[in-house]
């Protein structure tokens, strides 16, 4: 069976000439469907750059990037946008919700933007996801009125809205207290087990990493463990 995601010999250099900084130095990583992996490493090791490339928000300087059998290096901006919308979910450290929208509107955004309108089906799925995240009573609340933990759970629901095969989470608990962090991680674990969604979670927290079945360590722009 082919892996869900495979990147080989990834190199990413920022800047040119003497100011050039090589962040990734021939990184190789393979993720199978249903994995729940923690991405560990010190600051500046290239974790965020790797997540950005895996999320098709940035292209590497060189190397190969395959997901679901598709060569994402060759794809243009429009194709990558479509691919990202259908197959990849994001959870950011600072939740990054749209401030002028309610919790439900934030969750259904990825579907609505693809279909050009908010359908009843999308609203139903959005509600279900929010109920599952324990936010059944906050569905129509403005996102700005939610607590940090609630916002992050809305962000997780949004990442899952289009049923992506891969969810990339960049320090999803980095801005939360311990209780909220555990609540978010438990939800992620539950979805991983029940739906087989692959998670790659960047974290500095050993306890959070321990909740994942695999730990990928990045150091100096390469996978070292």
């Amino acid at each position, binding site marked *: 069976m082919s892996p869900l995601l495979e990147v080989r010999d990834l190199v990413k250099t920022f800047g040119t000439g003497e100011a050039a900084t090589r962040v990734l130095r021939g990184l190789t990583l393979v993720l199978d469907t249903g994995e729940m992996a923690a991405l560990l490493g010190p600051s500046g090791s290239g974790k965020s750059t790797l997540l950005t490339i895996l999320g098709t928000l940035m292209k590497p300087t060189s190397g190969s990037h395959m997901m679901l059998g598709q060569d994402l290096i060759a794809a243009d901006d429009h194709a990558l946008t479509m691919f990202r919308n259908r197959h990849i979910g994001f959870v950011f450290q600072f939740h990054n919700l749209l401030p002028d929208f309610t919790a439900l509107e934030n969750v259904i955004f990825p579907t609505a*933007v693809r279909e050009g309108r908010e359908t009843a089906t999308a609203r139903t799925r959005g509600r279900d996801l929010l109920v599952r995240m324990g936010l059944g009573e906050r569905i129509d609340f403005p996102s700005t009125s939610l607590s940090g933990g609630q916002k992050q759970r809305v962000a997780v629901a949004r990442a899952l809205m289009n049923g992506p095969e891969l969810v990339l989470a960049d320090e999803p608990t980095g801005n939360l207290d311990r209780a909220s962090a555990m609540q978010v991680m438990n939800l992620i674990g539950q979805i991983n087990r029940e739906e087989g969604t692959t998670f790659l979670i960047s974290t500095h927290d050993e306890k959070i990493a321990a909740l994942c079945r695999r730990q990928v360590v990045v150091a100096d722009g390469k996978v070292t463990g």
Partner: protein
Amino acid sequence: MLYAFKIAGRYLTANKAQTALLVLGVAVGVFIFIFMSALIGGLAEFILSRTVGDISHITIEAETADPPLLISPEGHVLVATEQASARTATLADAATWLPLIEAVAGVRAVSPQITGAGFLSRSAQVSQVSVTGVEPGRESAILDLEGYIIEGTARLGSGILVLGRKLADDLALSLGQTLRLQSSGGVTAVLTLAGIYETGDGRMDGGRVFVSLSTARTLFAMPQGVTRIEIKLDDLNAADATALRIRSLTGLDAVPWTDGAAQLMEALNAQAQTGYFLKTFALITIVIGVASALLLSTYRRRPEIGIMRAMGAGRGFVVFVFVTQGALIGLMGGVSGAVLGYLALLPFPSREAFRAGTLPMDITQGSYGLAITLTVIGAILASILPARSAARVDPVTAIGQ
């Protein structure tokens, strides 16, 4: 793209005070546009009504026939002709053409006339005058003679004369007095002064007399036909086209008023150009205002644009959101400005009631639809630059902000 429309609307309602100020700015620009349209249009209408309102819009005059050559046309023949003032050209078939001309679309009134020169005398006082014979009942068809009457009546009839106030003063005339009018052909008629008019035009008030068409026939020895036909139109701006139609219909040399009014037309054109400039500046102000406001909005919303892009919103979607915002601002500002402009113009007198000393604002020339359309187009154009800038936002950098 309903969803992009919803997001654009949400962005506008998210900051109501800012949106209201922006819409107000656009509305003021549209208000100025409409105010200028009504003023320039009204002014042109006022000038035209004052200068052209009382004259014939299309005139058909009898052409003087060339004298017949009584010598052999072989070789070079030099002929000198002198225009004989006593000899009057006639439109002999006028009676045939009148119903045809009256049936032409846009023709409001037709006045067949016999005109010529004459001498008006009372006792030893004599004054040279221009004589116009018009059909009784059509005295005010072209010139509003009845409206200018200050004494007596404009109603003409057999043995009756109407003249201007200056002439009446010069000859010390009063209503009911008997006068002698001798035509350039030497025919004399004794007429009674039945009315005195005052138009404000010294040349006319001091030298033009009106008699009935039958009196003019006697004076100018013209048992049939007329010397000219004057035509008044519903729309004086249609004079060129209507004159062409009459010419093709009758074969007569119908001359529109614009043929002899090049200077007036130039002045009106210059005034219209001034109006265009002012309206263009108002539109430019709107475009700059919308563009700068949307650029600021784009900058402020960079992180959100980054999130949208990360969630799968394409560049086209982002462009559509911001262009829709511009269009909505233009539409709201345009409609508000048009309503404000209309309300502000309501207290001004209608075009029929224009009087000297008041601003001749014509509420019907506010160009409301044009103002709204141009504003929406201008706002859309103004939003393209910010929208393209938004679409180019790098999601990685923006989310990092």
